């Protein structure tokens, strides 16, 4: 992170298009072409790269705010469906939702595709539990929902980072990465395919954790990594 002394100069100019995209680059939501452009700019512009460190810090802290925001109470489904039951019986609108009905049709005739996020989640289960089965999205009438969020009941002991793996990383790559660096996935994936990963069983200092983050981010399987304080 930098403390730019020439703030006045900067204040007088408009941000570049690449600079505007940095938050989405940090979040991993740019398309491949924009991602390449940002990466090229970061590699040739040290000042931009140093400003990007602040973006990463913002991303990590907003993620922390979100993950500690809690969850709705367990009875929220009951409350919702009580409200739904209290509504007058509705008639189905046959002309609406064309795209949805097309999607439903396609879903019924094409092979199921395996989303990367689901594959990654299955990988976590296999790695952590040693099982050779994926997980199936299930719904239950009462409770028991499976969501894509990082559990808010995160363990309090230890030191953690948030990692998004490269989409092209294979299960073997990730497995080797975790084993080599003695890491354990303890949660996720949250939105944006972020996994909560324990890097040490004890609470490390900020400096030590930053050192580990800097080391791990050079690994080819890591797309994004930030310390989770």
């Amino acid at each position: 992170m930098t403390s730019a002394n020439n703030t006045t100069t900067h204040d007088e100019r408009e941000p570049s298009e690449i600079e505007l995209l940095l938050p989405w680059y940090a979040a991993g939501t740019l398309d491949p072409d924009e991602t390449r452009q940002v990466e090229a700019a970061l590699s040739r512009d040290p000042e931009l790269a140093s400003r990007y460190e602040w973006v990463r810090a913002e991303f990590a802290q907003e993620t922390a705010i979100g993950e500690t925001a809690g969850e709705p109470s367990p009875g929220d489904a009951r409350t919702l469906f009580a409200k739904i039951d209290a509504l007058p019986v509705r008639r189905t609108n046959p002309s609406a939702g064309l795209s949805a009905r097309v999607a439903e049709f396609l879903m019924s005739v094409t092979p199921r595709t395996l989303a990367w996020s689901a594959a990654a989640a299955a990988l976590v289960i296999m790695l952590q539990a040693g099982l050779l089965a994926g997980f199936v999205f299930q719904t239950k009438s009462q409770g028991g929902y499976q969501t894509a969020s990082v559990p808010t009941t995160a363990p309090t002991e230890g030191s953690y980072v948030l990692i998004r793996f490269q989409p092209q990383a294979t299960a073997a790559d990730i497995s080797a990465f975790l084993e080599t660096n003695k890491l354990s996935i303890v949660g996720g994936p949250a939105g944006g395919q972020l996994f909560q990963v324990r890097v040490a069983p004890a609470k490390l200092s900020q400096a030590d954790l930053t050192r580990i983050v800097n080391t791990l981010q050079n690994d080819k399987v890591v797309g994004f990594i930030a310390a989770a304080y």
Partner: protein
Amino acid sequence: MQTISDEVLIAKIAKGDRLAMEALFARYRIPVFRFVKRMVRNETTAEDLNSDVFLDVWRQAGTFEGRSAVSTWIFAIARFKALNALQRRPTEELDEEKADTIADDADDPEIALAKKDKAAVLRQCLLKLTAEHREIVNLVYYQHRSVEEVAGIVGIPEATVKTRMFYARKKLSELLAEQGIERGWP
């Protein structure tokens, strides 16, 4: 392994399928709750709004035309309800929020301690952003919404999304500067 798409669930919900509604609710209840809570900064209000959002999803599923992703539609409903709730808040609550955004001249011991930890100060500054800025920061950083998706949720052009995010970050720089952390532009 099978993941039912949001679009398929909405089509089923439009036909009155409660199981599909449960599945969609399970998928989005926490992200939407956290987004709304970030906006209104009140747990009870957020929980009430969350329920109202999905009640609207149930009611309006038949009108969903697929011009945007289902998640964009749901977050747009959530944002609309959160903004309405903010407008309905009593004056004294608004005054408290405004006071939160004003920097203290004298640091209490807690703030002084926090200054030693940039991450903690940054987090405090994020919490002090206005509703307009914290909504976009949350959508981009926490909800992982693309420029196009944020434009759909907030109802503004994509170019405006980028500049609004930039000015939210600029405001963040100002708040950091008030806490003694100069990071330059933005």
